[in-house]
């Protein structure tokens, strides 16, 4: 058993503590960050005020251009404190456009990888179909850029990445998580309200993290890197992920592996969460088995 260095834990600078703007800045090289479509541009969602929701002047998404370990990069961060990180028409377009522009710059000779900070419940319900369309645009923009440059997804916590945006996360070239981060298609409350508390008790934290938590997702190969909630550790992991470049085959294209993983599990007799990594490893799916 490894002895945790508690003093080091206390000395760390928590990344989770930071808001979206601070997170984006913390990843980029000092002094290099420059916000695009920032709050002073006042690009707000027109759909919230009529529904009695106070809009935010950045619509909850921060786009930051800058240098990552000396090279150009763009960071797009979702602010979890605003509408549960829900993606609406404006915030979705900000994210999709940033990715498309990075692809354009890359094609024009300035390779520009992207980092997505995903703390989001998915589509913003107040914007209904427009939000759905926006998430589709984000996915399509990820596909466009990832053919040229790495798109690194970071789920640090504490909200997690759920709904349509979990699909966007799954499309990322590499995915970095902390132990406190969660990744899943349907959020715990959604499962409980749809399928009943017998199916899923959304107040059962060990259950939630045993399925959706960073350790499990990395262990089962649905995410790549598990890091400590620490600014330096996160930044180092992001730089490494970008430096690792393009994989031979993107995770979302490893259909055979994913199918084998699905077939290895009998939904009528699901394995214990802790056993899933082994079950999948035997079936030929990749994970680091932690």
């Amino acid at each position, binding site marked *: 058993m490894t002895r945790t260095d508690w003093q080091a834990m206390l000395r760390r600078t928590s990344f989770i503590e930071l808001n979206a703007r601070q997170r984006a800045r913390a990843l980029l090289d000092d002094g290099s960050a420059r916000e695009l479509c920032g709050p002073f541009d006042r690009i707000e969602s027109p759909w919230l005020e009529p529904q009695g929701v106070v809009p935010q002047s950045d619509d909850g998404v921060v786009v930051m251009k800058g240098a990552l370990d000396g090279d150009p990069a763009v960071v797009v961060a979702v602010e979890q404190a605003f509408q549960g990180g829900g993606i609406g028409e404006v915030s979705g377009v900000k994210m999709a456009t940033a990715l498309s522009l990075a692809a354009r710059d890359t094609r024009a000779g300035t390779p520009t990888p992207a980092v997505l900070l995903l703390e989001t419940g998915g589509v913003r319900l107040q914007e209904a179909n427009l939000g759905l369309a926006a998430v589709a645009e984000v996915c399509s923009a990820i596909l466009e850029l990832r053919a040229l440059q790495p798109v690194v997804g970071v789920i640090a916590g504490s909200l997690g990445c759920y709904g349509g945006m979990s699909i966007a996360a799954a499309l990322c070239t590499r995915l970095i998580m902390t132990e406190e981060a969660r990744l899943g298609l349907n959020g715990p409350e959604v499962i409980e309200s749809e399928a009943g508390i017998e199916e899923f008790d959304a107040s*059962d934290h060990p259950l939630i993290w045993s399925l959706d938590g*960073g350790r499990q997702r990395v262990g089962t190969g649905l995410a790549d890197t598990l890091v400590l909630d620490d600014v330096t550790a996160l930044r180092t992991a992001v730089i490494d992920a970008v430096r690792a470049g393009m994989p031979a085959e993107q995770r979302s294209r490893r259909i055979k592996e994913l199918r084998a993983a699905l077939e290895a599990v009998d939904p009528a007799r699901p394995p214990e969460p802790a056993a899933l990594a082994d079950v999948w490893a035997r079936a030929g799916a990749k994970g680091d088995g932690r």
Partner: protein
Amino acid sequence: MAATHVPTTTRDWTRRRAAKRERLAAVQPFVSGRLVDADHMRDALQALLRPGDRVALEGDNQKQADFLAEALAGCDPDAVHDLHLLISSISLRDHLDLFERGVARRLDFAYAGPQSVRMAQLLADGKVEVGAIHTYVELYARMFVDLIPDVALLCAEQADRDGNLYTGPSTEDTPTIAEATAFSDGVTVVQVNELVDELPRVDIPGDWVDLVVRSPRPFALEPLFTRDPRHIGQVEILMAMIALRGIYERHQVTSLNHGIGYDTAAIELLLPTYGEELGLRGKICRHWALNPHPTLIPAIESGWVESVHCFGGEPGTERYVAARPDVFFTGRDGTLRSNRVLCQLAGQYAVDLFIGSSLQIDAAANSSTVTEGRLTGFGGAPNMGHDPHGRRHPSPAWLGLLTGEAPALRGRKLVAQITQTFRTGGTPAFVETLDAITVGKDAEMPIPPIMIYGDDVSHVVTEEGVAYLYRATSLAERREAVAAIAGATPIGRGIDERRVDALRRDGLVALPEDLKVDVRRASRSLLAARSVEDLVAWSGGLYDPPARFRTW
């Protein structure tokens, strides 16, 4: 000369003792030695109890004799009915099922937090007769005066073959109820999690215990005192800074009790950072009457805390507390020994300060956590939140609030209320009329259920500043001081700035700048721990947070 009444017949002076013998004889079919067969607990209770019995059912702040409560609720109302229940904290469904089924009729209680809506309904339906809504200490006190239990249903972690009990860290009220019952020829029945040959320590001697049942599941224990630092925001931090400078530092508060809540958790988490910066370590907050709050761990670890006496335990802190015996009261076995009544006594007579969050405060500083449609009761807040006139020993903090006319001078305990001017959802915390007034009328209470009376409150803290109410010489002045820190609430809008300036000059009110509190510094980076994980790290891995507080 007045006539003396001379009894002509000989009275039987041992009726309770005889009744106890009869009761214990009646349960014999279900008992071997002291041990009741868990499968026949209901039958045993039906044999033991008489209609109209006064039954103390252990429902403490945290631990619940839930197996016995369930067995009692299942009793046949034809056999067992019209019981008079004494429960300090009504928190289980079973507690109120008893009344719905007619097993019990009369109730004396102190707190009904989780069941407060149903409680109000049962009262309206005439299903329950309330003797009185007490504060904790009163209810236990009356068990020794005019509410002596016939039967007590208690819980403990372990029992040995002689009925000796180990309560575990959450001793809470068990010894008190057991004493009131055992020494008045009542019957004590205890559910235990385990039967063992040897106890780690004896919390209650076996000859106070009549019957023991091994519960099929451990008794319920709520982590009531755990607050996740993630939910502490800038405003709580600002208020904590104001409280530290405006109350703790100014009055040299060395011994104290904190209520439950994020406001006071913020103060605990600011000691190792802001408090350290102010050079206050060793000068304030040395002795505590407090449950083992996980948010106190950083202050303990950085050497602020000399002693903590506890009302009860707190799930997850067992190993940590056991590893810090110089600070906590621990048994020879090493684990925490708590005692709610003694800690209440300490909180009333031995400490300089009580500070707690309030939900509603009126213009005269009366405060209440009662809200409409609920009958929550009082709990222990009024016990902690008052100035005990029986105190005589001086301390700098107590003497600092000197009151009265010579020679009848006395100090005062500091009773502080802390609240944001507006609560979540934009509800003002400062109101013209407390909800408690309506609730009291609806429940036909003889007096409104005010938690803490305005004339006991010495300080009110909000994000606007501190009101030093003990300095007010009239009710009018007290009202002005409250208004001065009540922000944009209807109460706060009633005072003009010039008057506030005058109150500041006279020392009745202090704003952050008067206290040299830099509002801009109120950020989460000032918290010694910002997550439950940080608390675990501070404890060196000794704190085991309950599952619901784990986010990893």
